[in-house]
């Protein structure tokens, strides 16, 4: 079977996303009709995808035509039938196309995407759909039918879905190849990174991207919380390292310097921090601060600068760096401010 690489600049490091939906349940109502369509043993029947919705600028061309060229591309219309070896490019804004593969699978190729249909065929055992996603975003799903159905989308990572997956989605950023795969409704996805070959299971309501795909499976909520509370821009190097080793499971990737070192140092002991405090010299231990304390650097993102600014607006009043009011009349050349 043909496997087209629509983006040659991917290079060897970027090889593929695969979303596979395997459907096994039997629907008695349409079982007989599906059996009638099944090819004989050993026979492979090539099929065509049907365009069921088009919005905005969507064009198609045989695989091999460059996306940035105008020649060779023709607009896609509803009810067009697309064969294997067709690539599709979708415009940047207000554009998308929905394709139906047989009776049980739909795929929406979203704006600013370049994708191709590599294979769509049916053999006696299953129906196979293979797409290449150069960049952009796809989403869609499958419902259960008599025939097992495989849906594979090649891009940066590989994902496997089993038993009627609905609400799967995949996004790949051009040139940087950042990716994100998600499952919004039901089913199960298994994501396989082409670079690290690390699998990752995605359950409904979860997503995985290049940030977390190589990490030990953790609760998605925990991952989000970690990201939410410690955004990238606010982390110091030490905090990022600590969070990575203690809350994301990243340590398992480097056993010699990760979790083993952390366990060896006792950082995972719940009494680790309190133990350090207890071992300190009592003379050096500072008493716990009161509930509200004015610190020179400000509290909770409200720096004292605002207080000083407000203070300066008042006549003859000014706040010093500790937030205390100064008598402005004493501030002058060669005179030392005197606190009230």
């Amino acid at each position: 079977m043909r496997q087209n690489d629509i983006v040659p600049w991917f290079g060897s490091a970027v090889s593929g996303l695969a979303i596979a939906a395997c459907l096994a349940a039997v629907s008695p109502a349409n079982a007989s009709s599906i059996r009638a369509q099944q090819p004989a043993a050993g026979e492979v029947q090539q099929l065509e995808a049907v365009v069921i919705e088009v919005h905005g600028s969507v064009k198609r061309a045989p695989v091999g035509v460059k996306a940035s060229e105008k020649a060779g591309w023709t607009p896609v219309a509803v009810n067009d039938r697309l064969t294997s070896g067709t690539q599709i490019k979708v415009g940047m804004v207000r554009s998308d196309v929905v394709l139906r593969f047989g009776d049980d699978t739909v795929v929406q190729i979203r704006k600013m995407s370049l994708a191709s249909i590599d294979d769509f065929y049916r053999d006696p055992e299953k129906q196979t759909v293979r797409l290449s996603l150069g960049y952009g975003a796809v989403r869609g799903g499958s419902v259960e039918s008599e025939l097992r159905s495989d849906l594979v989308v090649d891009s940066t990572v590989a994902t496997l879905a089993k038993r009627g997956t609905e609400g799967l989605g995949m996004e790949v950023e051009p040139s940087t190849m950042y990716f994100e795969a998600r499952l919004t409704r039901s089913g199960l996805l298994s994501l396989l990174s082409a670079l690290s070959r690390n699998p990752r299971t995605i359950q409904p309501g979860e997503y995985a991207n290049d940030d977390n795909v190589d990490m030990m499976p953790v609760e998605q909520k925990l991952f989000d919380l970690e990201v939410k509370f410690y955004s990238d821009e606010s982390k110091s190097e030490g905090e990022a390292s600590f969070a990575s080793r203690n809350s994301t499971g990243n340590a398992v990737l480097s056993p010699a310097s990760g979790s083993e070192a952390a366990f060896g140092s006792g950082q995972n002991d719940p009494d680790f921090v309190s133990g350090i405090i207890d071992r300190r010299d009592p003379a050096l231990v500072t008493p716990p601060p009161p509930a509200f304390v004015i610190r020179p650097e400000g509290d909770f993102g409200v720096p004292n600068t605002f207080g000083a600014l407000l203070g300066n607006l008042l006549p003859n009043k000014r706040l010093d760096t500790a937030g205390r009011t100064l008598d402005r009349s004493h501030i002058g050349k060669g005179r030392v401010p005197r606190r009230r």
Partner: protein
Amino acid sequence: MTQTAGRWTVVAMTAAIGIAGCSRTSVTFTPSQDHNTLEQAEFAHYIAEQPMMTYDQLCRAVLLLADGDESPRSFENRVAELQSRGIARERWSFGAQDVVDRGVLAYMIFRTSNLPGGINTRLSGWTGVGCERYALKEVARKRIIRYGLPYQIPTGGEVMRALARADDYLADHGMYESAEKEIRSPRDVE
């Protein structure tokens, strides 16, 4: 006297370093093809293959994002149109082939998408100090663009993907009438 002169020297040096540090290093890029000869879809996919993006190209892409369609315009016309809408800042003095950084990109997305900003964003927008930086934080918080430093130069692919996500944001928030619906199952298209 000597002490006063020394103080003024320190002040002058600090100001000079500050001004030099805040100034923008102009990087120019000559694309291999004139984007004005390309139609909308070809333009977008051509940009996605570029290592960086010029200000002229970004102005065209942002107008496309804001209006959903485009008409042929010159560079000066695009800039004037964006400035009149408040999407491009008048203090920017970029040439057509100047390369855009993440801060400029984020600011234009921020203004086009009418993103709500926090107090720092509003203050920075009012004073004009650091507004690109805070716009980048807001846009990154909405997951339209990945966080990076405001002076970093994004690739063409990053820019186009960010603009596509911004278009999703506009559609989700009803800023234009979208016929697109979320397809998650064959049942969604029946």
